[in-house]
């Protein structure tokens, strides 16, 4: 219970009889303001904040320990079932429970979003609640402690100095100031001094907490906007449109993967040419750690593989599709590589497969052949299928397909992330805030000088135990004791 709470209780106790609840029952009217206040109290409660941190930590730990499904795997029913089947072998009967809790996609689960939202609210309330307290500690420190404070403070001690009271006080003030302390005389007791360092240091926590909110905001912005698309760019083929209103195309003129004698990868490099609508172009060797950047769009070297150049015509000979289809998946027996593409105008999906390199003769096709399978609408079974030789047109349903050739493709991740800049702003503020918080801790000491020749200097602080601060304080007071009067050079003793 806070001081404010006690005052509230006291006010209620002193209220006139007319304000009391009627006898025989309790009627309580909870206003929106009351609800807001209670919510605010809950959110600035440190215990609540710690519980939320615990929940977020546990959820993240689940994300590490429980294999997570990618968005693509979860969206595709067959892939999802395969993932869950694997999960059943690991988690047995717990699998449905884990699935229901969203723990296979924990970082996009409602539970995680709720926990992060509560964390953000808790940080916000704590920051709002703490700022006035920090301001008061800086601008209006408590200057006059009780006598008992000097007997009971967590850190306390005394020095005897062979000098009069005024000189000792003056000397203390001077020494403290020379060591970076702010010194304020006690307005109620001329023997007293208050000294502190880094009175503003607590604001480091405000900066750090605010930065955390910025980081959470950056996450939200990054996940809800921008560009995040994988392009399969045929090497030596036609330029591919980047899309998303960028007006850019990207062409790969070469791709080289280098390995050492033991098969360890040494380098992946694509030579990319990016052009805008005005015909301006930029070319670059794009490596894993050297993306091509055009304005706010970045193209990252991500993957590579084999693609099948495919052409599809409708019954009237009109061209429906002509592109390199990346063969992204390998069949279970490893004999074929499979890719797929959509014919949106026909509500159809076509799978294309070729013999995998090094797999020897496939059961269903020879090298230089490709198989096409057509799925129409949501049908679970194929409506048609055909295996064709390279360059030979073949019917597939009411379409005509041509497998033109195999070629390499380079996988280029296209990114534009408006949240990234806020992430860096938040990160810098987080480090700055932490540095201020931990390197500039607010340190306070109350001093009282009693008597003359010798003067007894009592000092006390209720700050937490700090060996370094204790040592510095001891050195400082020892220095005052050694030189009680700088001008006269009198020596004093300490106890």
């Amino acid at each position: 219970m806070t001081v404010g709470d006690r005052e509230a209780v006291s006010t209620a106790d002193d209220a006139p009889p007319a304000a009391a609840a009627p006898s025989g029952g309790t009627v309580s009217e909870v206003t929106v303001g009351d609800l807001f206040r209670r919510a605010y109290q809950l959110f600035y409660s440190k215990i609540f904040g710690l519980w939320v941190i615990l929940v977020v930590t546990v959820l993240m730990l689940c994300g590490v320990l429980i294999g997570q499904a990618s968005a693509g795997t979860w969206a595709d029913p067959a892939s999802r079932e395969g993932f869950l089947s694997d999960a059943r072998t690991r988690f047995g009967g717990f699998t449905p429970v884990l699935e229901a809790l969203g723990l296979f996609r924990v970082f996009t689960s409602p539970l995680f979003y709720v926990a992060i939202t509560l964390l953000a609210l808790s940080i916000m309330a704590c920051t709002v609640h703490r700022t006035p307290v920090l301001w008061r500690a800086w601008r209006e420190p408590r200057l006059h402690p009780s006598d008992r404070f000097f007997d009971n403070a967590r850190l306390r001690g005394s020095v005897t100095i062979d000098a009069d009271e005024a000189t000792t006080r003056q000397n203390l003030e001077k020494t403290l100031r020379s060591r970076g302390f702010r010194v304020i005389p006690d307005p109620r007791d001329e023997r007293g001094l208050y000294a502190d360092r880094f009175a503003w240091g607590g604001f480091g926590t405000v900066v750090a907490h605010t930065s955390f909110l910025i980081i959470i905001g950056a996450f939200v912005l990054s996940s809800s906007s921008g560009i995040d698309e994988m392009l399969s760019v045929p090497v030596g083929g036609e330029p591919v449109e980047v899309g998303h209103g960028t007006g850019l195309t990207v062409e790969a003129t070469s791709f080289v993967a280098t390995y050492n004698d033991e098969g360890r990868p040494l380098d992946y490099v694509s030579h990319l040419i990016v052009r805008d609508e005005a015909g301006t172009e930029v070319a670059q060797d794009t490596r894993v750690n050297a993306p091509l950047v055009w304005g706010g769009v970045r193209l990252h070297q991500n993957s590579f593989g084999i693609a099948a150049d495919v052409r599809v015509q409708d019954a009237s000979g009109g061209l429906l599709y002509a592109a390199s289809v990346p063969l992204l998946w390998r069949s279970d027996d490893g004999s074929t590589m499979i890719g797929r593409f959509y014919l949106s105008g026909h509500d159809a999906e076509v799978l294309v497969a070729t013999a995998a390199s090094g797999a020897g003769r496939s059961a269903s096709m020879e090298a230089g052949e490709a198989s096409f399978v057509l799925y129409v609408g949501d049908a679970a079974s194929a409506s048609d299928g055909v295996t064709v030789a390279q360059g030979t047109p073949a019917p597939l349903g009411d379409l005509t397909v041509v497998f033109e050739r195999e070629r390499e493709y380079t996988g280029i991740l296209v990114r534009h992330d408006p949240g990234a800049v806020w992430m860096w702003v938040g990160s810098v503020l987080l480090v700055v805030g932490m540095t201020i918080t931990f390197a500039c801790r607010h340190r306070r000491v109350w001093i009282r000088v009693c008597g003359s020749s010798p003067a007894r200097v009592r000092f006390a602080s209720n700050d937490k135990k700090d060996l370094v601060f204790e040592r510095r304080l001891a050195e400082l007071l020892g220095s005052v004791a050694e030189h009680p009067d700088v001008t006269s050079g009198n020596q004093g003793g300490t106890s």
Partner: protein
Amino acid sequence: MNDTLRLAEIALPVVLGLTLLALVCNVVVVAGRRPDAARRSGSEKRVAVGVGASGDSRDRRSSEASAAGAAALAAPRGLRLASYATAFTLVATVLLTVYIAVRWAETGHGPFSNQHEFAVSFVWGILVSYLVAEWRLGVRALAIGALPVAAGLTLYAMQLDAGVQPLVPALQNSLLLTLHVGFAVVAYGAACVSFAAAVLYLVHPRLRLRSLPGRQTFDEVGYKAAVVTFPTLTVMIVLGAVWADTAWGRYWGWDPKETAALVTWLIYGAYLHARVSRGWQGKRSAWLLILGFAAVLFAYFGNHFFGGLHSYG
């Protein structure tokens, strides 16, 4: 692996031996009689900076001692042994530094690219953090908790393949590799010191070591080490995000290793919040520090079972 690297590897068993010797010396020093007589006979003036109700007499003595100066801390025999302990630790650290420098020179990049190199760097971080703590705070007893971990990790590093492999494309960013893993090394080293302090805090009542500082001192040392761990972990994670943004196109991808690092960060964050704002001291905060270091080890050894983008070998 060339002859230079093979020769440099001899440093590791020597480091192990020196670390164990330092541990034994420190145990003997801490178990020995506190040299009160030497301190009393000193002509130095003392300023009594006592810790109040929360402290015990041993804390008071240590505060007084720090004011009186480190020279009065040990009697000649204890001082000699203590000097040997520090010297052994220092030489072990120098040897590790040389080993790391040789690998750096031979490979052309910071030696942080495989489990062996990171294990050696981890030991280096622990030894440096311990030496700094001993120098700044004068708490030699920390060796009892920190040096066994350093010795264990040295032994572990000696079991791993020390061969030099070229960097895979994702790791070919010398600046960020050095900075990102360098901050991890410092953070993990400081975390080990806070772990040592927490363990010593918890077992303090059962220890019959005559020169052991007060229990409260370990609570504070644990906090001080965590105050180093937390910001350096933060910088390490931020640098990792910068690197991920460059190499993988996104600053955060919930990769198991980066999530484990975030879990570790959250535990230290919870510890600092609990201690600073809720006044959690003593057993509860000591257990949080132990949990934090367990998370550090989990993130470190996770390379063996996490998979994901950080599984470089």
